[in-house]
């Protein structure tokens, strides 16, 4: 019936004849696409792996000890050079990494080649070359369009086989990366289901990987996030020299100039955007270049609006995007409104100061010093976020001091985290979170500095006096007894080393 009707229409209707061929062409293209999709999907699926991480993290309360081993599951996918791209949080604190291919029970041992905790990315390599046979790496795409469809692959908990979910790109913006805790980078939101275990898996579009699934918002429904390709490319470029340097930061805090009266007060020309610089972080990229009160109007060739946004792809994102896609050492052109004039400035990008203290720490054993049974550590994010440690004094030293009193924060904030009871420290056994400001009247700059000061203490010293701005009563120990009892304290509490200090981290203190 239909054939007859077609024949009839083709014969008697020239206009239809023309359209028929167009329709046929579209149909052919569609058929070709349909037939190619399964093949493409198949190769993608072959290149998405299940990663099992046997991890062990340190006990920050007893820094010489490790916590029990735990097992985590995540995903990863093959990119060029036989590299497996995944999230840093999937492979952090690893003791052994196993990689399984789709529907294969055979685990392959893998090693971490590079890891970027600040942008939650990592590269792995499987030891056995056999693993890579018949695998096709995924190509990295670009920034997807809003509302376009994407597909997430991975091994979420609740099963061992590969999971495939679909959704649309719902938002492209800056947001906090949970793994480092403090860093904000570009992220893409999708309603494609991203669940624990999906982390590290690819998010694809048109057969290309356009991101790495990495976190979701458990308080909201259908909100998953993936790391976009520009940040992945930045990571891959960063490690080319065999070392990861990190995402640079400008190092300023800004406030919007949405309020028209503030703009009038500053005398800004009409239709000029710009954001107000209200803090310049000491020792940062902007230190010595930007000034408090500057209005940042342009970054590279992008105009900054009054909310601090610039045009990026289809939408507005914060101007920090221009720094995050660059490397440490790169320069950045800025235009500011200062004292009634536009000025062009150039800054050289640096890593954020105090980054290692402010970020969650992984893959590193804590530094510590034990003296007279007192356990000293350097305050960091891991410690302050341990239960019971967010106290106002620690919070002040960790966060507020440098903001309110710039350049007064020492290299490290040294604290007595606990006391190992022994005769030399009787009376202090309940001491906890004692912030050490000085030793025998001299300021303590870091843990390494403290250790050095203790080692160089003259033998005739009677007492060692640990002073604190927060505790009226200093912590005083008999020097001779502390030395005499040192080994017995370590032995009593099963501690092999009385200190752990990384020389390369503390060059200034040596």
């Amino acid at each position: 019936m239909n054939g007859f009707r077609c024949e009839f229409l083709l014969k008697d209707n020239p206009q239809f004849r023309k359209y028929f061929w167009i329709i046929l062409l579209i149909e052919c293209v569609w058929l070709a696409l349909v037939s190619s999709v399964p093949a493409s999907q198949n190769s993608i699926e072959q290149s998405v792996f299940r990663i099992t991480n046997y991890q062990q993290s340190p006990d920050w309360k007893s820094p010489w000890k490790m916590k029990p081993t735990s097992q985590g599951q995540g995903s990863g996918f093959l990119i060029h050079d036989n590299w497996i791209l995944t999230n840093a949080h999937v492979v952090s604190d690893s003791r052994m990494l196993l990689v399984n291919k789709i529907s294969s029970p055979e685990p392959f041992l893998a090693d971490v080649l590079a890891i970027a905790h600040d942008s939650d990315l990592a590269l792995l390599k499987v030891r056995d070359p056999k693993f890579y046979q018949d695998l096709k790496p995924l190509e990295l795409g670009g920034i997807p369009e809003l509302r376009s469809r994407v597909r997430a692959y991975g091994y979420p908990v609740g099963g061992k086989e590969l999971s495939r979910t679909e959704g649309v790109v719902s938002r492209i913006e800056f947001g906090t990366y949970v793994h480092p805790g403090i860093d904000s980078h570009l992220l893409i939101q999708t309603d494609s289901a991203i669940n624990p275990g999906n982390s590290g898996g690819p998010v694809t579009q048109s057969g290309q990987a356009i991101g790495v699934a990495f976190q979701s918002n458990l308080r909201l429904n259908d909100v998953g996030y993936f790391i976009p390709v520009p940040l992945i490319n930045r990571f891959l470029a960063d490690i080319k020299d065999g070392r990861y340097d990190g995402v640079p930061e400008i190092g300023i805090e800004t406030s919007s100039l949405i309020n028209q009266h503030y703009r009038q007060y500053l005398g800004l020309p009409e239709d000029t955007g710009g954001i107000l610089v209200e803090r310049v972080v000491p020792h940062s990229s902007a230190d010595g270049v930007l000034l408090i009160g500057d209005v940042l109007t342009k970054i590279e060739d992008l105009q900054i609006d009054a909310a601090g946004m610039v045009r990026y792809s289809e939408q507005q994102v914060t101007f920090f995007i221009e720094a995050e896609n660059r490397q440490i050492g790169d320069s950045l052109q800025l235009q500011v409104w200062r004292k009634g004039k536009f000025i062009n400035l150039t800054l050289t990008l640096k890593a954020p100061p105090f980054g290692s203290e402010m970020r969650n720490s992984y893959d590193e054993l804590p530094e510590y010093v034990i003296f007279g049974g007192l356990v000293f550590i350097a305050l960091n994010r891991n410690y302050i976020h341990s239960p019971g440690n967010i106290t106002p004094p620690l919070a002040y030293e960790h966060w507020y001091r440098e903001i309110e009193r710039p350049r007064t924060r020492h290299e490290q904030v040294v604290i007595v985290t606990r006391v190992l009871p022994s005769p030399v420290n009787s009376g202090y056994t309940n001491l906890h979170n004692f912030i050490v400001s000085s030793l025998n009247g001299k300021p303590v700059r870091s843990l390494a500095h403290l250790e050095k000061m203790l080692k160089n203490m003259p033998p005739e010293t009677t007492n060692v006096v640990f002073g604190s701005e927060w505790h009226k009563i200093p912590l005083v120990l008999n020097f001779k007894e502390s030395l005499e009892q040192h080994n017995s304290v370590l032995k009593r509490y099963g501690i092999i080393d009385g200190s752990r200090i990384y020389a390369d981290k503390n060059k200034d203190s040596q």
Partner: protein
Amino acid sequence: MKQNNFLYTLLKWPITATVFLFTSVLQADPPEIKPWFQQAVLLKSYQQSFDWRTPWEKREIRTQSGMALVVRLPVSVRISVSENGNNNNLYLLTTAEIVSDATLIEVTRKDIRSPFQAKLVLMDYAANLALLQINNSKFWRNLRPVKWTPVKSSTDHEAKDIYSLKIKSQDEWTMESGTIDRMAVGHREVSNAWFPLLRLNGISQSGQGYPLLQDNETAGMILDAGTGEAKAMPAAMLLEFLKHAGSNPYRSLAHRGFIWSRLPQSSTYNHFQIPPEKPGIWISRVLPYGTGSDVLMQGDYLTKLGKWTLSHDGKVEHPDWGISLFDLLFLAHLKVGDSVKLEVIREGKPVVLQTKVSAYEENSRSVPLKIVGTAPRYVIEGGFLFQELTLNYLRIWGANWQTRAPMRLRLFLEQNKAVSIYENNKTDISSTGTKISSEHPPRIVLVSQVIPDPLNIGYQKLSNAVVLQVNGKQIRRLEDVSTAFLSPINNFHRIDFLPGSERLSVILPVAELADANQRIKNNFRIPKLQSL
């Protein structure tokens, strides 16, 4: 072993029964209830505290019930109130907690059904005591004041037994028995005050303002009770309160003038050049008020208070209560105004200091502790709600305010080791030896919220931001805000905040401010734009 157990079981019950009978015989009869019909009245208060989040509003009404005791002030004491309805200097004594922020206080006699309205004439919130009057002679008819007797030391076994009233209904008054656990030093956190308090066991039915009876005499007043434990203010402190109730301005009860620590070990003694065998306490902070605050210094090692030698843990051999914390001396032996000698070791040398016993003072600190009965102070300019940081403000974060209130604000309160803002707009941790001036301690002024208006578009996320300057002028109290707004610079007002705030500065146009203020007042139904 098994045989022993059997023997024990066999003997256990007869022994228990004998002990019970023996103690029952020994225990004195409960005090007579009838005299209390003339000495105590039931109290019901309707309280409505201020809403510190929206300081022009009040919170929901709540009711509390308790008792008030009829007391006679000494003849010399005159409280300047209009009329008290009696000529005998009689008043009602109860707790401050039950009548603070009251909108209506009703008291009911046992023999008269209808309640009388009482008026608060004096409140010592730190001591948790309040004095009421009733301007109605009918109420006072046949009422008799309580006769106070000092508490007998609980070292005497019999003296441990105490009684209090138990009120089931207006008609059904009985006695409840309990025991004195100890005379302790109570720390009232909302005021940071230390006063001697009796800790009681077995008292759970009585409540605030109930009498405490020992040997048929009134030895104190219950401050709070529940789950078998109660706290009571001993008669000696109550008499002190009544004696000074008429002082103008009112002065509170005798109080220590310092915070102290125990030195942890011999190396610390050695460091401070104190002989380790010398007992005493280390003064870790000098308070802006209280005994010794005028002569002591942080770092002094206090060895003797008057004739009493202090132990390493702050205890003295109390004549009535045995080894107790030195604060118990304020019960009877050290009265406000008494001369007292303090012996200290200062920088390794013994020093004798002469001072006078002095009293607790309220709110002589940068972050005032709990304020009751007074409306919150505030100033609104351009939608910016300026308030001073107080304990009341921190408590708007609920019962868990100590973990939920903004960390930076909590830091100002942290054990008075406040990180304070000093002259040149930088911050400093209050230096150890510095004594806080009790006269005008600077306050922390906040923009607690921004009330939305077209004028403040772009600023509305700002909240709980500590104000450093307005129009270049240092802000040390709320009044400074109003004054600074009188001096705009080049037709703009500029407000600067503590670094770390949501934003560090805002600008408001002078020309549009008055209209915006009026608009905000009308739009949000705010009765007045400032309350100072």
